[in-house]
């Protein structure tokens, strides 16, 4: 029954996955542009962020239309409301990736102050978390969603590590302050991305249980 409706719901969820993969790529490629000083790639990423924003608006419009025309209830309603919130988080993660690309352009071809190890690892973790979160979304898997929130701790730890290292470098050599600050900002972008991904996981739990919970309690 309600074949059209089912198709629309499925199409909506597929769109979310498409947007998710766009964002995931943006995280990895922006880090690549930073590592390899690939300014052309960086500019590409900045341009492609428009597509990510547009995707969010498209999905939002589809959600509103579905609510108005199909009066979704219960589980369907929770999915659509969750999607409305998730695309906001996804779009913000996209903005963070764009931020990293912008920093790559700002750094330009200045000499590196240290080899990039932890930052790429953060990006790697973040993109993996996003992949798993979207997978949990499709399968409505509460356990995986909660586990991802634990992984956020690892990203936070990496952030603290990067922060300490760069502070040390800045303290030893004031000439590195500019470049180091920018690198801290990259780490911040990645850490915020991971936080956003835990928000997405909270929405997944909401879809499955009907309740909003605060997962990934702060350690402070």
């Amino acid at each position, binding site marked *: *029954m*309600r074949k059209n*409706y089912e198709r629309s719901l499925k199409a909506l969820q597929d769109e979310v996955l498409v947007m998710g993969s766009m964002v995931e790529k943006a995280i990895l490629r922006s880090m690549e542009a930073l590592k390899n000083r690939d300014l052309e790639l960086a500019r590409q990423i900045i341009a492609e962020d428009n597509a990510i924003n547009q995707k969010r608006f498209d999905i939002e419009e589809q959600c509103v239309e579905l609510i108005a025309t199909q*009066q*979704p*209830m*219960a*589980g*369907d*309603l*929770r999915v659509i409301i969750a999607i409305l919130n998730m695309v906001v988080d996804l779009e913000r993660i996209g903005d963070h990736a764009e931020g990293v690309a912008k920093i790559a352009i700002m750094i330009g071809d200045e000499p590196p102050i240290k080899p990039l190890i932890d930052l790429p690892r953060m990006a790697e973790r973040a993109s993996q978390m996003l992949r798993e979160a979207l997978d949990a979304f499709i399968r409505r898997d509460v356990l995986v969603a909660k586990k991802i929130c634990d992984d956020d701790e690892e990203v936070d730890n990496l952030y603290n590590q990067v922060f300490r290292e760069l502070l040390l470098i800045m303290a030893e050599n004031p000439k590195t302050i500019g470049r180091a600050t920018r690198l801290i900002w990259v780490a911040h972008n990645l850490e915020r991305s991971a936080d956003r991904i835990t928000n997405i996981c909270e929405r997944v739990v909401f879809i499955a*249980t*009907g309740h909003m919970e605060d997962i990934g309690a702060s350690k402070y």
Partner: protein
Amino acid sequence: MNITDLVNEKIPGLPPKNTQLGGKLRLEQVNLYYGSFRAVKDISLDIDTCSITAIIGPSGCGKSSMLRLFNRMNDLIASARVEGLVEFDGVDIYQPGVDVVELRKRVGMVFQKPNPFPMSIYDNVAFGPRRHGIRNKRALDEIVEKSLGQAALWDEVKDKLDQSGLSISGGQQQRLCIARVLAVEPEVILMDEPCSALDPIATLKIEDLMRTLTSTYTIVIVTHNMQQAARVSDMTAFLMVDDDRAGTLVEYGITSEIFTNPKNQKTEDYITGRFG
């Protein structure tokens, strides 16, 4: 029947009632048979005073039969037989010695197709009180005005009270039927798909009416329109037929929860339209 004195609470626009406000209803392990066919199976639920309860479910699942348990309208069918406990204000209404006529005065009913009598609007509303012995013209005038007012119909018909009840629109006829029930001052109003024969505007007017009435009356409404149940009711009961075509209670709970996060998968399937 026990009539309890309650503190007279002044409700704006209505004179204080001298009997208990609203009425509590209860079903405990109730089965309804038509001959050897079981139409309703092992249903238990409690309906609270001055609430609106919606009964939803696919066609033929026994919703109307269940509604008619509360005012013993099933008695009109010769082969109907009830087992289990049906209580109104704590009294088993199927025990011998219960005055069915008095029961129906306190538990009134509005039907799917508006059925005003072929008399004037005034006579329609005054019918119940007249048959219960009220003859005084002034008293009847008051009752007619009050009931039509409560049914949100007074302004529309106050200048044509002597016109036939059949001369007004469908939505107005249904409100006339509601006024007719209100005129006998019931405690519970049962509504069997009251809006299914009406247009959307008339439907919304009656839904608004229900929300105002609920402060004084207990309302139980059978509806096949889920959005209406979601809009209007405090509690929702979902009925479905099982394998032997008997209606059973699948889930009963707070309306907002039933429609956002039902506990039973069958409820979810029905509400999202995955199952007829």
